């Protein structure tokens, strides 16, 4: 477990990563607990991404400020920050659903233009289509790509099996529980075989047991498919439980505050002592930002 507090070093993550590859994860004054293979090439790179939005009171507000982020192929990165730090906005920008005010997003070194099935976002509210059955939802991306009916039915079955929902392919979405809907969304996203999977607080609304189960499943599927995942959450422990790396964003404007490499052995559990300890360390860093966020909310309430 180590912590990189040096922002200047972080701006050049690809360099850090290549050093990791050559020298093992003990560079940058770090003592690692376990050796996690660090991918060499950057799958996804964000360069000086900024975003503004129109505030009803004070004109233009800076939501994201010069975000620099690099995610390696097959890496599981968790982004943590207080509410209002622009985490969701960041994912929307990566997905190409929102244009940043400045900066660029690169996938495999090429700048991305608009939405594309190489980056699939699982929305906080999932956005499953209620007029389609579970199987049709999973098939949707393949259908748009023009895949034949039999082929996509077959693939959808495989992905539904992967998320343990094979028996529900003909159900409609509203007939499923919250955890099952999550898994449908995951299957639908995976079925397009994206290069990068973007997840926006996907498990926030679930009960603890279901969330634990889905953590296990997500970790297994990530290992099986080798996906690159960017996972946004406000739950630090969840981030440590899942991520290879935890990126901390500041409160308004969102900036990269610090990064933590989580070199704990997998599979992990939320209750693991190491996970709890590291989550506490990260939380200490985060506390200031959370306070700022709460203060802002309080100010807003007293002086609307």
């Amino acid at each position, binding site marked *: 477990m180590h912590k990189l507090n040096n922002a200047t070093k972080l701006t050049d993550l690809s360099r850090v990563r290549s050093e990791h590859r050559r020298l093992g994860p003990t560079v940058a004054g770090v003592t690692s607990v376990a050796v996690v293979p660090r991918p060499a090439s950057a799958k996804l790179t964000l360069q000086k991404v900024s975003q503004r939005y129109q505030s009803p009171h004070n004109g233009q507000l800076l939501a994201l400020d010069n975000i620099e982020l690099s995610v390696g192929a097959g890496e599981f990165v968790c982004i943590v920050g207080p509410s209002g730090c622009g985490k969701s906005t960041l994912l929307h920008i990566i997905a190409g659903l929102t244009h940043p005010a400045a900066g660029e997003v690169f996938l495999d070194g090429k700048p991305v233009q608009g*939405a594309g099935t190489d980056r699939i976002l699982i929305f906080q509210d999932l956005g499953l289509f209620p007029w389609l059955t579970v199987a049709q939802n999973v098939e949707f991306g393949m259908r748009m*790509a023009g895949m034949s009916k039999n082929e996509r039915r077959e693939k959808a079955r495989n992905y539904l099996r992967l998320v343990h929902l094979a028996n529900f392919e003909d159900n409609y*979405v509203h007939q499923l529980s919250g955890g099952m809907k999550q898994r449908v969304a995951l299957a639908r996203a995976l079925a397009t075989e994206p290069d990068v999977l973007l997840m926006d607080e996907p498990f926030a609304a679930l009960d603890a047991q279901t969330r634990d189960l889905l953590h296990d499943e997500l970790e297994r599927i990530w290992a099986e498919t080798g996906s690159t995942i960017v996972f946004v959450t406000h739950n630090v422990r969840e981030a440590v439980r899942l991520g290879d790396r935890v990126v901390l964003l500041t409160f308004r404007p969102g900036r990269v505050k610090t990064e933590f490499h989580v070199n704990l052995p997998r599979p992990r559990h939320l209750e693991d002592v190491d996970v709890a300890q590291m989550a506490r360390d990260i939380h200490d860093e985060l506390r200031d930002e959370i306070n700022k966020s709460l203060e802002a909310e309080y100010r807003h309430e007293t002086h609307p």
Partner: protein
Amino acid sequence: MKRILKQAVFYAALLAVWVIVAKLKIWPPYVFPEPWGVWESLKAGFADHSFWIAIGVSMKRIAVGYGISVVLGVVLGLMIASSKFLEETLGGLLVSLQSLPSICWLPLAVLWFGLTEKAILFVVIMGSVLSITIAMEDGRHQMPKIYSMAGRNLGARGLKLFYFVLLPASLPYLVSGLKQGWAFAWRSLISGEMIFVSLGLGQLLMMGRDLNDMSQVIAVMILIVAIGYIVDALVFRLVERRLQEKWGLLPAA
């Protein structure tokens, strides 16, 4: 069950009042017929096929006119909803035009198209297209944004996005507009058919008037109401029910 009983009692009472008033002979029978006079007219109308022909002609017209209205309304509504400029200009115009009774389009239609099939179709379309357009526009606005984002994210673009995402996603909002559009189309059709020898139900009404045959007038009116009701119950309520089941909008049984 209780509801059906209440309805039976209500209609029986209505019929009784009708019989009593007719029996009092305040007005002559050709002004205020008895129920069985109307019943005879209905039987005679179906027996000599004149009602069947009228129903056939009117249904064909409404199918064509309403069909055009639906396509036009959906496309127009989506266009308006996706352009701020159109919304502020055309959108406003359509809302104000909606206060115009569709029969007001008839003189214009007759001047443009003559006493033809086209004139009637024009009135039917003008009568129903506005409510469908406005419902589609509303539906597009009320539809949660997440569906179109999810659709784009999964690779749906342009026409595919429209057909596979925007249209089905706005259907629950659109369906009330389609229903209203149908009712307006049906009314406009009957009014349009009244003005010349058009073979439809509207003309049968006028024929009853010309022959001073109040029984026939009422018989045709009953027919018009019945068809309107049947289409509403068979088509729209089924569609609504199906939608609610799919979307899970039904209250838990």
